[in-house]
């Protein structure tokens, strides 16, 4: 059977766990380039497990293409595991920073939304909002009329709604495998 021609693009959150080695970001992004897929957002840092890095990647693509790319990513030797989620499977947030002109309406917005103020100077104020991408975008629109000098967002980070990180299962499985192989070789 030929692959269905499902051309409808949707948002997906891909989490990738890797060894902490140089060049892995390049390996991952080049696979997206190879498939001609734009990365909407990408964040990376050490995961909860020492020595293991976590990448959170948001793309808007067809499910088939996402599956294909993720398998290619996972195939790289130094990648431990990659998971694909739909937005409703994860709790996802990003941080946005806004550098805005001082204006009484801005101050009102800060109070109304209980935003954090990071810095105030004579002619601008830096505020922080944490939330979903839609929310940080909305605030940007609201601030626009008063002059936004700079605006930056962190890209999304996510935790899964299932209780444990799925990576743990994989690592446990691989540990058992390692022990088995070690026993086999010491018995020989």
């Amino acid at each position, binding site marked *: *059977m*030929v692959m269905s021609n499902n051309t409808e693009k949707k948002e997906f959150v891909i989490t990738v766990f890797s060894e902490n080695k140089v060049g892995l970001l390049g390996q991952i992004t080049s696979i997206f380039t190879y498939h001609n897929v734009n990365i909407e957002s990408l964040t990376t840092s050490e995961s909860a497990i020492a020595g293991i890095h976590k990448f959170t990647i948001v793309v808007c693509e067809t499910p088939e293409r996402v599956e294909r790319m993720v398998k290619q990513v996972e195939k790289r030797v130094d990648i431990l595991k990659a998971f694909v989620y739909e937005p409703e499977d994860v709790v996802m947030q990003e941080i946005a920073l806004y550098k805005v002109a001082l204006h009484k309406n801005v101050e009102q917005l800060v109070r109304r939304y209980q935003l954090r103020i990071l810095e105030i100077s004579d002619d601008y104020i830096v505020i922080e909002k944490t939330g979903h991408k839609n929310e940080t975008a909305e605030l940007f629109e609201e601030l626009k009329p008063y002059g936004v000098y700079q605006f930056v967002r962190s890209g999304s980070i996510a935790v899964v709604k299932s209780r444990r990180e799925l990576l743990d299962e994989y690592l446990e499985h691989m540990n058992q495998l390692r022990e088995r192989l070690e026993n086999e070789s010491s018995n020989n």
Partner: protein
Amino acid sequence: MNEKRLMTGGEAMLEVLFREGVDTIFGYPGGGIMPFYNSLYDYTDRIRHILMRHEQGCVHAAQGYARTSGRVGVCVVTSGPGATNTITGLADAMLDSTPIVVISGQVPLSLLGSDAFQEVNFVGLSQVVTKWTCQIKHASEIADVMARAFYIARSGRPGPVSIDFTKNAQQELVELNYKPLNFIRGYVPSPEPDMEQIKEAARLINSAKKPMALVGQGVTLAGAEKALDEFLRKSGVPAGATMLGLSAIPSDHPQYLGMLGMHGCYAANIKNEDCDLLIALGMRFDDRVTCAVNKYALNAKVVHLEIDPAEINKIIKADAPVLGNLAETLPLLTEAIETRQHNEWMNELKEANQEEYEKVIKGALHPTEGYIKMGEVINAVSTAYGDNAVLVTDVGQQQLMATRYFRFRSPRSVVTSGGLGTMGFGLPAAIGAKLGTPERDVCLFVGDGGLQMTIQELTTILQTEVDVKIILLNNFYLGNVRQWQEMFFDHRYSFTDLIDPDFELVAKANKIGYTCVEKREDLAAAVAEMKASKGAFLLEVRVEREDNVLPMVAPGAGVGDMMLEYKK
């Protein structure tokens, strides 16, 4: 047996190669790899170094060696241009799943990133055409990195590994503590067979009326040729082979149909629509096999036995995927299926192939008039070697003809660039193929265009006395491109006409035996002369200039529209 003795990194690398059982390396020296070569001088009693004439040749030779021997092919080159010259071969090995390790020199750590002389970011450059790549920055890393390199290259779905070996690491002193590896936590070389998947596949096979097996190189890589035969005999399923799957099944197997794909056999293509089940065995539905993918397997369910999860559902959706190494999954599947015969279906397929025989093959193999045809040369050579030589090809019409008409009796008998279609692959690959299996005869079919791409390797033959028989099917054209120009570009032969060197002089310059055949009646004697000759031989055959490879599925067409004839 790790000696407590200090050695240079260069020597440690050689020790590693020796302990990995590497007996031959293909290389080319230069500044960035000189400390290694200095140590190699002391290792020539244990490791044979073949000095190729270009680094591209080093990689293709290593590929040829790997393909016939089933072992990891190794090449060693210098930094910068030496390294970049290996890229084509790495990409070729990546697409064709060939286990090789390329060790390239690199500038010293202190100069990394400074645009030093012959510095190139080779880890970055080779990443996308290798299964794994790593830089050795210090001699102390050699043991660990190389154990990984060999394990990754040969395990699971094999592939190329490139190792960037800094010059300081070659010079530093180290006490080698080498231990081969069989575990990397991020790497599952071969998924464990899942009985549920096997049962589901067996269920589909048992209920199929018109099944067809598609034999890929996965069978060869797993060494599962015997398991394949047992599966076919019990299931009664007819089988075709991909270009790289050739020789995993003997050409005279009663259930064998022929090659799959664009220039494959008629039956496998034309009857694809009638199939109700395709059983893919270690193959990846390359577009040269499926042709227009939206017209492929329209009425068939698909069972896909495959070691690489990324191949499942990549092109063709699998109704019953079976992950794992074919050497394990295929016997389990054979056990789970019922004994069947598909005589009627088999006859239907054989009839289609008979039509191809009448309209195409007879004229290609046994022409009685006109110029010599490529097919009859291939037939004559195959026959002269009792259908048991190793076939190596370059790329082009001669490749498509040779893979169509050469016959195979034993496994690992075909070395060709399938995925990348690299012209210039043939000659160096043939050198490696022969060294990988010295007791077998190696016959290379090459075109006049492709031969000129790596022709300098004739001098490697002169220096190392490798016995390869080279059959040059000379049409004085970039024939394959010319065929497309004739068929699909209105006969406009844009830059495909070749003026060739005098190949006799080229052969003589390299002290290689040579004969040229222009007439049909001289062919048999010339082939006999080649076979009887000691050492390498170049047999040039002037073939019909505008011969076309048929049958053919036109680009964009479905397999069902394969054409047997083309009116000039």
